[in-house]
């Protein structure tokens, strides 16, 4: 009997999660430790350093979110094992403990009392072991179910709402029906369509949680009293023909497919592997949203673009999908899947959606995306407020 699931060749992690890449991640806890992390990555082939500007004197929920993102990135199923480096031992250990809960190998190092050079040496010796171990892990055939994905659009234009987003919506429905999780976010960019999103959440508790998150986000923006029309829609959006935030939002939500929204996650909430379609509170900045999705376990991100966004991530492949024939021609090296024939109505929505789905299967099986090859390794933790 054949399974109802398509299969992929992927990595099964000790906690049962499924990854599509096999990275050894070098994770600095703070800005000061970026140099040592980059030093290890320079010495040891097959490692990837994940530098970022934060981690000092953050406090409260903002600090919790940084830990959530750093531990979550190391815990991501696409990571075989991780090295954590911090200026002080305590926070490095805290991040490493979060990763160790998945059962994967992780080692933490503090730079104080050692200096960069000794730390780089100690960390590099462990990183070398991890890379050699990782190189022997084989891909295994698994059903395409219980896997986490994420979606976002960027540098959108009206071709996103007309073609690339509806085609992605087809893929989202298919992944949800197979028992996977698909995360979406972009809280502020739902403005003008937030009622449509809310109405797709049947559980009243989850619906009010979503509306509370949405209203709080928008109130933070409006409290600043600034000219938001200068940034929403963006200059690229306007060039592409989008006139207002409402128009952008209605195009944005075309990619959510048609299934009910069965999960609502705030910044610190975990997202289960079979949650279905899941709203995650994120900013609408591409790298910030993908960084949070990956920290919550997404192993593959689908990214639709009109005018041409470049974003990638250090540990998860980002598939770029566009329907804008001008962008596809001008920025061909960044686009993985061309659905401009859907814009021109030469193919059906199903054909365009299947094209994206089949490409995603190839990427899950190991094909590198444009963003991976072009070294777009953006890692941008969301920062909630000022540091102390």
């Amino acid at each position, binding site marked *: 009997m054949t399974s109802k699931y398509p299969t992929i060749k992927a990595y099964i992690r000790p906690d049962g999660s499924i990854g599509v890449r096999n990275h050894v991640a070098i994770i600095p806890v703070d800005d000061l430790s970026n140099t040592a992390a980059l030093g290890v990555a320079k010495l040891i082939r097959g490692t990837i350093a994940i530098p970022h500007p934060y981690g000092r004197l953050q406090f409260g929920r903002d600090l919790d979110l940084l830990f959530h993102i750093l531990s979550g990135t190391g815990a991501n199923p696409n990571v075989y094992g991780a090295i954590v480096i911090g200026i002080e031992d305590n926070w490095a250990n805290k991040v490493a403990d979060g990763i160790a809960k998945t059962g994967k190998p992780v080692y933490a190092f503090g730079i104080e009392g050692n200096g960069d050079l000794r730390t780089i040496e100690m960390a590099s010796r462990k990183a070398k072991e991890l890379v050699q171990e990782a190189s022997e892990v084989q891909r295994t055939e698994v059903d395409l179910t219980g896997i986490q994905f994420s979606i976002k659009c960027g540098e959108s234009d009206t071709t996103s709402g*007309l073609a690339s987003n509806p085609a992605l919506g087809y893929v989202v429905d298919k992944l949800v029906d197979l028992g996977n999780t698909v995360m979406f976010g972009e809280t502020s960019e739902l403005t003008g369509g937030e009622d449509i999103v809310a109405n797709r959440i049947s559980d009243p508790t989850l619906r009010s949680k979503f509306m509370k998150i949405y209203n709080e986000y928008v109130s933070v923006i409006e409290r600043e009293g600034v*000219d938001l029309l200068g940034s929403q829609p963006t200059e690229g959006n306007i060039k592409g023909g989008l006139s*207002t935030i409402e128009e952008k939002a209605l195009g944005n939500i075309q990619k959510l497919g048609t299934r009910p929204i069965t999960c609502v996650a705030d910044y610190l909430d975990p997202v289960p592997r079979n949650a279905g379609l899941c709203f995650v509170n994120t900013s609408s900045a591409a790298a910030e949203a993908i960084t949070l999705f990956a920290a919550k376990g997404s192993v593959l991100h689908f990214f639709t673009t009109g005018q041409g966004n470049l974003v990638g991530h250090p540990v998860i492949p980002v598939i770029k999908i566009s329907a*804008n024939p001008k962008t596809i021609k001008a920025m061909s090296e960044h686009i993985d899947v061309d659905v401009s024939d859907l814009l*021109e109505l030469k193919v059906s929505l199903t054909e365009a959606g299947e094209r994206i789905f089949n490409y995603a299967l190839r990427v899950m099986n190991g094909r590198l995306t444009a963003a991976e090859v072009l070294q777009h390794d953006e890692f941008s933790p969301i920062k909630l407020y000022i540091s102390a």
Partner: protein
Amino acid sequence: MPRFAIHNREDNVGVAIEDIKAGDEAQGVYIEDRSMGPVIKALEDIPLGHKIALRDIKAGERVIKYGRPIGVATRDIKVGEHVHVHNVKSIRWGNLARR
């Protein structure tokens, strides 16, 4: 061949799926069933992805796309005109912008 698409039959704007030049008689198409819609004479160039008015829209009237208001006309718009930030503004965030 259709040159602009209409998301919803209630919409008063369509979206160019290729560059439309001023003076062109452009054919529209409804997305939902791909049936042919109105033919509109473009009064201005409408670049790929930009909106064309399907009927006259008065200043203060809502601009409808996806069957939903996406903004409000800031001046009278004639059928065939380019509809964009110069003649439509957000309903939600338009007031904040003027502060």
